[in-house]
């Protein structure tokens, strides 16, 4: 495609602007989701309705999937591989990681498909394109809430009580996760409009994500295996690792069983407690978000003709 598409050449001059002229298809860019809240809320409602059309269980499916996942992992890893023997409250440990990876997978996957999935709209009506990936994120958050509720109830059953540290760790974790994943999602949504291979690639990343962050096993086991190498640093700098560890701090680390266990087994404590490399996670997340937004803004004018 001969790339003569530059926003500046199309824009009206200042004199013309004063006369009320504007170019078609101009919008508030990355601020659109805030400006167009009404339309965004309607798109979210549409997604939620469409998702469970004709299904008897409806929203309950967002409990069923993580529940099955949890049971399978718990039996295979906790019981058969005996991870629960050395990890007190392993169920809470496992589930707090699973909810992170699930939210990541859902936001990332849905955002990637959001432009191609709304082809009918994108190719026919001018709409602020950012609304589609943002709507996907909000839908994913709606599905995340029941899982979070189950996690909190589970943690309370293990004697965990909320504290300032856990609240802060949770907020840090969710902010890093959403900023990071939206950045990736904007990037892949834009690329997927041109090359449909991207969505398969994203599915692959989501599948691998569960294993490349300390969801199933403890981070100290990774340190024992590859500590001191560059891989260990990369592993630690993975924003998902950082978020999963923050969730462990929020829901698992200060449960009575674990606090008791740390006395006998110092390896239960993660490096850099309580918030670890949160600043690195936030920095990477913001950088990815900026990169994703820039790519999205630069390519969105071509969505209608690429689809």
């Amino acid at each position, binding site marked *: 495609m001969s790339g003569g598409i530059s926003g500046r050449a199309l824009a009206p001059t200042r004199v013309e602007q004063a006369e009320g002229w504007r*170019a078609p298809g101009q919008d508030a860019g990355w601020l659109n989701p805030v400006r167009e809240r009404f339309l965004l809320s309607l798109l979210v409602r549409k997604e939620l309705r469409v998702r469970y059309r004709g299904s008897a269980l409806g929203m309950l499916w967002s409990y069923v999937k993580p529940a099955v996942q949890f049971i399978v992992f718990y039996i295979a890893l906790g019981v058969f591989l005996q991870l629960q023997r050395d990890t007190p409250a392993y169920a809470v440990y496992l589930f707090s990681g699973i909810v992170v990876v699930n939210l990541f997978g859902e936001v990332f996957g849905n955002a990637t498909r959001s432009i191609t999935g709304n082809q009918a709209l994108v190719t026919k*009506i001018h709409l602020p394109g950012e609304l589609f990936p943002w709507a996907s994120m909000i839908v994913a958050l709606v599905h995340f809430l029941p899982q979070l509720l189950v996690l909190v109830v589970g943690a309370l059953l293990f004697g965990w009580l909320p504290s300032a540290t856990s609240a802060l760790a949770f907020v840090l974790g969710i902010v890093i996760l959403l900023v990071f994943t939206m950045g990736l999602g904007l990037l892949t949504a834009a690329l997927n409009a041109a*090359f449909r291979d991207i969505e398969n690639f994203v599915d692959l990343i989501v599948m691998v994500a569960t294993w490349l962050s300390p969801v199933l096993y403890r981070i100290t086991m990774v340190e024992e295996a590859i500590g001191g190498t560059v891989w260990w640093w990369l592993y630690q700098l993975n924003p998902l690792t950082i978020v999963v560890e923050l969730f462990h701090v929020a829901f698992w680390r200060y449960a009575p069983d674990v606090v008791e266990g740390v006395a006998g087994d110092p390896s239960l404590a993660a490096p850099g407690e309580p918030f670890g490399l949160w600043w690195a996670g936030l920095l990477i997340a913001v950088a990815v978000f900026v990169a994703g937004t820039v790519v999205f803004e630069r390519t969105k004018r071509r969505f209608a003709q690429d689809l």
Partner: protein
Amino acid sequence: MTPNLESVPESAAVPTAREMVRVEHVTKQFSLRHNHSLKELVFSALQRKKLSDTFLALDDVDFTVHAGETVGLIGFNGSGKSTLLKTISGVLFPDKGRVLLRGRVAGLIEVGAGFHPDLSGRENVYLNGAILGMTRAQIDAKFDEIVAFSEIEEFIDTDVKYYSSGMFLRLAFAVAVHTEPDIFLVDEILSVGDEPFQRKCLDRIRELQEAGRTMIVVSHELEMLERLCTRIIVLQKGRTVFDGDPTTAIATLRDS
């Protein structure tokens, strides 16, 4: 269905001097990429083969539309009518030249593009109103009028997938004509519904003309356009071949 010519009202449009749309030397090129895959991209890069053929959908199109005008765009299939309309509405962007607008635009580009079969009629009215740029308050205020226009009051809370195609089009058209834009872009929608409904649509268009709205209409219904429009532009392979009096424009297209 071809509208009964008797039912087409005479144009009520009154052109004024105020410019509303400027299309300045717009050129649009499309690349015909055969499919969307990275594999193809990589292979063509390795073989140094040209990946795509291009064709010129719009070639130096230049015209101005004034407030109150109803401009028809005619031409055979593939002449660039819809591409031009999409460029004006901001869905596509010109490669060369530029488009300037004054005021709010609403496109009736394919009625029902934003409709979702799994939502009820009511939800679709809100979703589409918002897609076409209305605020919540505006839709609330117009809701009853829209439903009355579409004549499907009793089915408004039924999912749209159970609608007949006529009901669907009526509701979609009703939303679109109630968005009150300054500039209306209409793509081949005047042939929807049965005859009474068509007459209603055309009356509505006449009302909009009387209210001084600017309209750009694409259609293959030449006789109807001749009566509705104050001016017609003939496109041929992306170029403007005629711009002016409707009767002459239609003769030009028929001769070509």
